[in-house]
């Protein structure tokens, strides 16, 4: 097996995550799809690190993880406060600025 297959898997996972973001309307599930996309990117970074034989790719993946953790904390806080004011986690309900 060629290690390039890891990149194909990462691309497939990223595509699935992106489609999920477009299709789903529950804010939590949309958020999970974003996490899936971040993870796919990490897999690509780790594979690139193996390809080039140095550890820079793994460092970038590590930073991605840290940023993802910070993002999850803030995003979930936003979802919780949205749920408190609107009693629903659907992204369709937050349409106050729509004409």
């Amino acid at each position, binding site marked *: *097996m*060629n*290690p*390039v297959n*890891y*990149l*194909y*898997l990462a*691309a*497939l*996972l*990223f*595509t*699935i995550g*992106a*489609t999920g973001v*477009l*299709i*789903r*309307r*529950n804010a*939590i*599930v949309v958020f*999970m799809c974003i996490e*899936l996309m971040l*993870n796919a990117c*990490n*897999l690509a970074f780790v594979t690139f*690190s*193996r*390809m*080039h*034989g*140095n*550890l*820079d790719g*793994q*460092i970038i993946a*590590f*930073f991605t*993880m*840290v940023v*993802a*953790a*910070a*993002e*999850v*904390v*803030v995003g*979930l*806080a*936003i*979802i*919780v*406060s949205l*749920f408190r004011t609107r*009693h*629903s*986690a659907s992204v*369709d309900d937050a349409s106050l600025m729509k004409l």
Partner: protein
Amino acid sequence: MTTQLAAYTTSTGEAFQFWVLGTVAVIGALCTVFMKKAVHSALCLAGTMIVLAVFYLANGAYFLGVVQIVVYTGAIMMLFLFVVMLVGVTAADSLKETIKGQRWLALLCGVGFGVLLFAGLGNASLKEFAGTGQANANGNVEGLASLIFTKYVFAFEITGALLITAAVGAMVLTHRERTERAKTQRELAEQRVREGKYVPPLPAPGVYARHNAVDIAGLLPDGTPSELTVSKTLRERGQIRDVSAEALNDLRALEQRAQERLERAAIEPATFKRPEEASK
């Protein structure tokens, strides 16, 4: 020769692991997108993340593999589950389209995007795989540490600032200042007596000792559910299970059986005749 071969292909064991676990990862990702309930999505995503951790380990990223399990499946997914529980586990997504044809267009966009990505990967000249053996010679963690604290030290420090900002932001977003003092139990009781409304304790939920779950409203004598019997939290979330129709059907079936047992079925033709008699 063998080292060159190792650069282009992986061992059979790794190939086997890739095909088996890769399938699991893709199925998990698809389930994350298409499961109706958020809890199921979260669990499927956790499975996918564990598989990805195994792939990191296989690619020589030993530190990241462990961090993936500890941080992602351990901390982030549990945070997700926590929020899912807070929002309500039973809250399923509505499947009604608000924009006509949006789902199909989104699927089309996704497929197009995937085709673009795959075509790009197919055309890239990814011939040589150096492998992480050289880079990991002094240990993976040591190698990462020496890079983080020399080449990427500023990024590392900025990451620290980002984490602190995120923690403060989350606290600011979810913290709610109490504008008035919470009422004590005594004050609540006095208020109830003063208003003269629902002075006795509220009725208990459940129906005829058959369903005694807290989310099932008790039935009034005419068979309609009484919202008073269910706790305020469940009422606001709309998580009341209504069994009044079932209960009424059961009651009707019971009455019919009793009539059959008592051989009173003959009454029914009599009531049937009444309109004819009336017409005569």
